[in-house]
């Protein structure tokens, strides 16, 4: 118990003193997750609109598949991405293995179903008459879709935050395709895993506190949006 308490105090010291290593790992985790979220949103928003506004055979099945993929294990995505970008894989020539870019690719795959599902679900809550009113007022199909998106903008931000939360807290992808290389591809979760194994508990706890703090901020943000 004393060890845990000492570790906690030392961790706080590392945070308040802006320890270079802690800040570097936290900063990298944040920008990797933020980049993954941005890319995923750029893909999922138009794709979600397309799926929602278009009628096509198998639409319901597709939505079910998307929802099933919410809980896909991160290690499975890590393995899949590894197979593609490893030297023997079809994209091996790009030299992406064990790089932040590889983690971003994996995280985009991980969070896209969540974002896509939440966007489709939010759009299906918009009254059909909103789109029709926009069309009747002379909007193009795209302009009318933007009106619907505006109507559920808070729900879409919620999807973004949920995606961010999932991305920053995952470990399987970062470990398999990121390689946990110090100063290059080490993230909060891989660092916690490594430092715990090394017995360097204060650093692991400091990073854990930062991760919990990020989760807390995300939750406060979600609650605030849900009240809108």
């Amino acid at each position, binding site marked *: 118990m004393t060890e845990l308490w000492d570790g906690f105090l030392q961790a706080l010291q590392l945070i308040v003193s802006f320890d270079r290593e802690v800040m570097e790992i936290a900063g990298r985790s944040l920008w990797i997750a933020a980049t993954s979220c941005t890319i995923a949103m750029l893909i999922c928003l138009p794709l979600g609109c397309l799926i929602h506004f278009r009628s096509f055979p198998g639409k319901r099945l597709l939505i079910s598949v998307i929802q099933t993929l919410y809980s896909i294990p991160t290690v499975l995505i890590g393995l899949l991405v590894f197979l593609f970008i490893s030297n023997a894989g079809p994209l091996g020539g790009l030299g992406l293995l064990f790089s932040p870019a590889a983690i971003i690719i994996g995280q985009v795959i991980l969070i896209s179903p969540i974002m896509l599902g939440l966007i489709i679900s939010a759009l299906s809550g918009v009254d059909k008459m909103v789109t029709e009113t926009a069309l*009747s007022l*002379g909007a193009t199909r795209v302009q009318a879709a933007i009106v619907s998106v505006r109507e559920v903008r808070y729900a879409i931000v919620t999807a973004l935050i949920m995606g961010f939360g999932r991305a920053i807290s995952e470990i399987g992808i970062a470990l398999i395709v990121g390689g946990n290389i110090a100063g290059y591809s080490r993230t909060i979760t891989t660092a916690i895993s490594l430092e715990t194994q090394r017995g360097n508990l204060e650093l692991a706890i400091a990073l854990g506190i930062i991760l919990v703090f990020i989760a807390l901020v995300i939750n406060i943000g979600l609650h605030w949006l849900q009240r809108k």
Partner: protein
Amino acid sequence: MALIRVVNVGQEYGGKYVLKGVDLEIESGEVFALIGPTGAGKTTLIRLLNLLETPACGQVYFDGVDVTRSERQRLKARRRMAYVQQKPIVFKMNVFGNVACGLKWRKVRKEVVRSKVDNALEMVGMLDYTKRDARTLSGGEMQRVAIARALVTDPEVLLLDEPTANLDPVSVSKVEEVLEKIIGQKTMTVLMATHDMPQGQRFADRIGVMINGEMTQIGSPNEVFCSPQNREVAELVGVENVIAGVITVKEDELVTIEVNGNSIQAISELPLGEKVHVLIRPEDITFTPARNVSSARNMFDGEIIRMTQVGQLVRIEVDCGIPLLGVLTMVSAQELGLTIGIRLYASFKVTAIHVIKRRD
């Protein structure tokens, strides 16, 4: 050339036809009212004219161009129209944003947007509400914002779907005031669906009657209200005396129609022996306590079997061998001392009767 032309248009939902073989031409600058009971297909027709739906069959022409299926043509045509729905939808933004959106989609310059939105809001009496969240407005206010939003783009055609349905009387009169202004300016073609008959009669140059997805009759308000083409139209436009009979005597256009042993004289071009319906509006029947000298050729005595008060009017049902329903003001009914069971005379002129062929 008609601004809007609809040729043999039909629409179906889930295999059920809600619109059948509708033909319609609306001239530029015309005010056309669509009347009909709920579910008659008025909204579907308006949605087809606004090109929000593609018809199952037939063609829609706008300004001579077939706009039935080409998406590009449909957008071009739709941008020359504006549609005010029965239940107005406002976007999650303030009143200004709601009214401005049509202009923004047309890429109108910001300064122009500001002045046009202000003008439109002023016209509907909502200029003080510019910054209000549109979702917090009352039903009547929302409808006025929806009208401003439609007017701001200076449409050539204004489509109104039951613009005063579900509104309280004060809001109805405010919306009607706005409609009167718009129609009075005579700058746009207006097509208005309504089941408020006086509203249709008051605003329209022509009226189309829709029943069960079909355009049953098109004509001037006077033609539709005074000379309905069939029993359904007659009942819809408030002709409550629909009496079945047979033409037994014909002298030129003056005919005598036998109804349950009584004779009604009317003017009709229908031939001798024809089975007909005699249509008489309740307000065309005069009640007197005694047989008096009158120019009315038809006079029957009977007993009051029912009296119903409707606002300041009293509906009186009299059994004269022929069931007749008339209306009187409360004051007249009191002056005549009318009560259930008393006998009186009901008279109506030959010219007040409309005779139509019976389709039994």
